[in-house]
């Protein structure tokens, strides 16, 4: 029995009618049908509709259809949508600690994140953090380790990062700035053109699957790994608390189990699709895939420590939650060093 069970006490409230049909709106931060990220909420809706025998009907809205992608949290919090699918780092402006629940540079990978969330304190802390907004979070899938990004120039040393104009949002961008880079914000539509014309020198996106379908291989030649800034980005399902509490117990359970299923399903899809896309990038598109040099990674790592120390200083919640994250990470790293990591080297 997982810890996440604590969140949803079976609802035995008499006001919840067993035969009633519930209709929910699920707003997302992605365009409809966006590979990977956009498929997860669709899969979730299908699961729930089928498992509930049509008693809980969920309609998925792509970014901008009902609300813009960055407004998903507001929509769910205010109850104008019952549910959302997004990434926690989008809410940094409201909740400075939220990014911990999506990705920390050089932080935990997907396996470790899931372990911390579901069998550590992660999910509990996450729910406490969102509780004042009347929003209940669930892990909503992961991209796995992302790629460092697309570069128009070779990166051979830290020197090459000086003044390098890169679209890299979030904590990663902050770290990038610390080592002398120039993070730039661009809307999704401007990224490709800006990279193609050289208005920016580099961009990170997701991984081979999304990157190739976005066409980034037609704008830059060097594809660097690994995604030090997003080592396994966790997405989120968020549910309006009132709406959730109004559901009968069995439907609540269906929602919860479906999020767990989709959380796994997205990773499976990414793992299957990413390696195929990578093969195409190398064999059909003649893209050069390279590792970031050791000294670059070392500099980024040092900068990450500074950025996180600063974030802990500035926000109490960040400090408290990161302490739990760090503690779990340290311990699981020790084990993974001689299991996962050792095995990867052995095989």
């Amino acid at each position, binding site marked *: 029995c997982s810890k996440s069970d604590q969140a949803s006490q079976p609802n035995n409230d008499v006001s919840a009618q067993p035969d009633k049909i519930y209709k929910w709106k699920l707003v997302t931060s992605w365009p409809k049908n966006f590979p990977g990220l956009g498929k997860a909420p669709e899969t979730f809706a299908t699961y729930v509709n089928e498992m509930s025998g049509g008693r809980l009907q969920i309609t998925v809205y792509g970014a901008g259809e009902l609300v813009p992608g*960055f407004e998903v949290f*507001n929509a769910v*919090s*205010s109850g104008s949508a019952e549910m959302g699918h997004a990434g926690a*780092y*989008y*809410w*940094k*402006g*409201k*909740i*400075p600690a939220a990014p911990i629940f999506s990705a920390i540079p050089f932080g935990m990978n997907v396996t470790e994140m899931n372990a911390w969330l579901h069998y550590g304190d992660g999910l509990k802390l996450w729910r406490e953090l969102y509780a004042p907004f009347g929003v209940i979070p669930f892990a909503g899938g992961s991209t796995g380790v992302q790629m460092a990004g697309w570069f128009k120039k070779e990166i051979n040393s830290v020197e090459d990062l*000086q*003044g390098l*104009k890169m679209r890299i*949002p*979030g*904590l990663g*961008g*902050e770290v990038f*700035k610390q080592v002398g880079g*120039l*993070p*730039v*914000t661009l809307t999704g539509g401007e990224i490709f053109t800006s990279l193609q014309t050289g208005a920016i020198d580099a961009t990170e996106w997701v991984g081979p699957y999304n990157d190739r379908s976005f066409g980034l291989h037609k704008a830059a030649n060097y594809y660097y790994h690994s995604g030090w800034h997003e080592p396994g980005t966790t997405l989120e399902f968020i549910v309006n608390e009132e709406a959730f509490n109004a559901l009968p117990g069995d439907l609540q359970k269906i929602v919860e189990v479906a999020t767990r299923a989709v959380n796994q399903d997205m990773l499976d899809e990414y793992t299957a699709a990413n390696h195929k896309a990578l093969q195409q990038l190398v064999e059909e598109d003649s893209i050069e895939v390279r590792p970031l040099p050791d000294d670059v990674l070392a500099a980024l790592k040092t900068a990450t420590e500074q*950025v996180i120390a600063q974030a802990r200083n500035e926000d109490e919640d960040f400090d408290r939650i990161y302490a739990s994250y760090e503690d779990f990470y340290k311990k699981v790293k020790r084990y993974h060093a001689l299991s996962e990591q050792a095995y990867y080297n052995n095989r």
Partner: protein
Amino acid sequence: MRKHIAKLSKGIDAINTALGQFVAYATFLMAIIMFAIVVLRYGFNLGWIAMQESVTYLHAAVFLLGSAFTYQQNAHVRVDVFYRQFSERKKAWVNLIGSLIFMLPVSLYIGIICFEYVIDSWALLEGSREPGGLPFVYVLKSFLLVFATSMVLQALSDIAKQALSLRELG
């Protein structure tokens, strides 16, 4: 009574004119800052997310705070195939009814529905979702309320104006 109404309408117009003419200079600032962003970034490898975001703030200020002024200047577009040929009296009726059943409710609706949204943002002193961005998202959101308020006032002023002119036209 009629005098008071006319005075009130004039007062509203004066406020919105002042607001619109003041915020108009933001377009000049936008151009300068945007140009500076390009020069600094590509000439000197310098850049700040906050600077990029400042253009968004100015942009929002222009179209949210200048809209009532624009209405008052009759610069919002109409489908005027028929309107153009209407008599002054008919035009006044169109504007009176339009302001009463379209502009006033729409502006009220936006104001009421945005109120909690803006208050919530103030309660958190909401900042940018980008590190190094401007920490004044609550101010940016507040422009929505200024927009709604100035539009409600402008609608009332217009209703008064059209009603008075209908009386004069007999």
